[in-house]
């Protein structure tokens, strides 16, 4: 089971934790966090740029961070051109994560698969479980697309991995996420599936593993943090 540590950054490469994807709490320099995570035996790191703005300064700081951390690194947020993708890969990113590009810019995903190989391309999905219709929908902007259709689109891109975030966190936290949703996902997509969001216990990780899920992405859960308090990074709290 791959246990991936997520680091959320803004456009000036400062790390934050977010609450309900809205309020941001500053937790330090991604470079320091990456070094600490490596020392704690972290498997992989994913960096998300929530401002979706990749400036030269951002790339330079990312490159500097890679110099001090010898772990696999993936990046997501604002990859709109093949040049941006090339800059990211040449600065040490090993996998590129796309989100809305699946719906509005498939070309960039296909170009990256052709240039960097399928193993270097990942698509992030934002799923919600509609209890009334018992359907799983993928949220893109204000539209909802059925799970089958979404995965069909993903398969056509040739990417090797999906990161599935369930926006309805209660669904995961209360352990009520129907097993058949994950089983269906497993049937529809033969490659790597990573679950993100709302993971709060080791038991939950074990359950996903038994369902054939390949990994989990932990983000705010690796930080112990309250407003005005210090920040403690504890990768092993959930993973050991």
């Amino acid at each position, binding site marked *: 089971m*791959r246990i991936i540590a997520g680091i959320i950054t803004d456009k000036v490469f400062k790390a934050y934790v977010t609450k309900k994807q809205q309020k941001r709490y500053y937790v330090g320099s991604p470079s320091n966090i990456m070094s600490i995570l490596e020392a704690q035996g972290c498997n992989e790191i994913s960096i998300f740029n929530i401002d979706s703005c990749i400036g030269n300064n951002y790339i330079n700081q990312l490159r500097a961070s*890679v110099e001090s951390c*010898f*772990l696999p690194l993936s990046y997501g947020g604002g990859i709109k051109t093949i040049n941006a993708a090339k800059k990211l890969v*040449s600065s*040490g990113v090993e996998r590129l994560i796309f989100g809305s590009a699946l719906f509005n810019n498939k070309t960039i995903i296909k170009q990256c698969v052709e240039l960097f*190989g399928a193993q*270097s391309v990942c698509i992030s999905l934002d799923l919600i479980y509609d209890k009334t219709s018992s359907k799983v929908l993928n949220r893109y902007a204000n539209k909802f697309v059925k799970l089958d259709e979404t995965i069909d689109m993903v398969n056509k891109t040739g990417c090797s*991995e999906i990161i599935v975030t369930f926006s309805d966190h209660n669904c995961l936290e209360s352990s009520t996420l129907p097993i058949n949703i994950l089983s269906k996902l497993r049937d529809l997509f*033969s490659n790597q599936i990573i679950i993100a969001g709302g993971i709060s216990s080791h038991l939950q990780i074990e359950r996903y593993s038994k369902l054939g899920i390949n990994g989990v992405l932990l983000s705010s859960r690796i930080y112990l943090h309250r407003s005005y308090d210090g920040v403690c990074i504890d990768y092993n709290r959930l993973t050991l």
Partner: protein
Amino acid sequence: MKHISILNSPWGNKSSCASALKRLNLNYSIKTAKEALSSSDVLILPGVGNFKYAYNYLLDSYELESICRFVEKGGKIIGICLGMQLLFTHSDEGDSPGINLIAGKVIMLGESNKQVTNIGWNNTFSTTENLNCKYYHTHSYHCVPFDRSIVSHESEFKGTKIVSGVKKDNIIGFQFHPEISSKNGLSLLKDAILL
């Protein structure tokens, strides 16, 4: 002191390789194979990329020729991930020929036509040192050398043994990424360069 060149190419994680060599206090630079011919003892072909695209680039830029001359001259070549695959005769990825420094083929992982990818820290067995170590793998294709005696590392994917490393004279290949496999990876990379 040995001088190491990381192949300057439009694909590949050159920066991660450079960071690893910097950490190991080795003398390196990012160069074309042609430049490396006269100035380097070791040439690293970095990973992350598509086989056909990479091969066509090497062919069109005459780098293929320089790489072969570098090896003939006695230089050591280290291929990482895609870099290792490129050393083989042929790849199913894009149905493309390779540099052909190692006789063998590169085929898709898994048994069906469905693409599967091996991503994660896999237990890797060193056939030369007879020990297991975890290294980070990420690949959808794997190498099958015709001469099994050159296999230096093996790992398992879905119950099947796959070749994770080869060593043939001055040609070394790693299917995994030693440059991002933390301390174990750095130590392996250092040995591959210096020994």
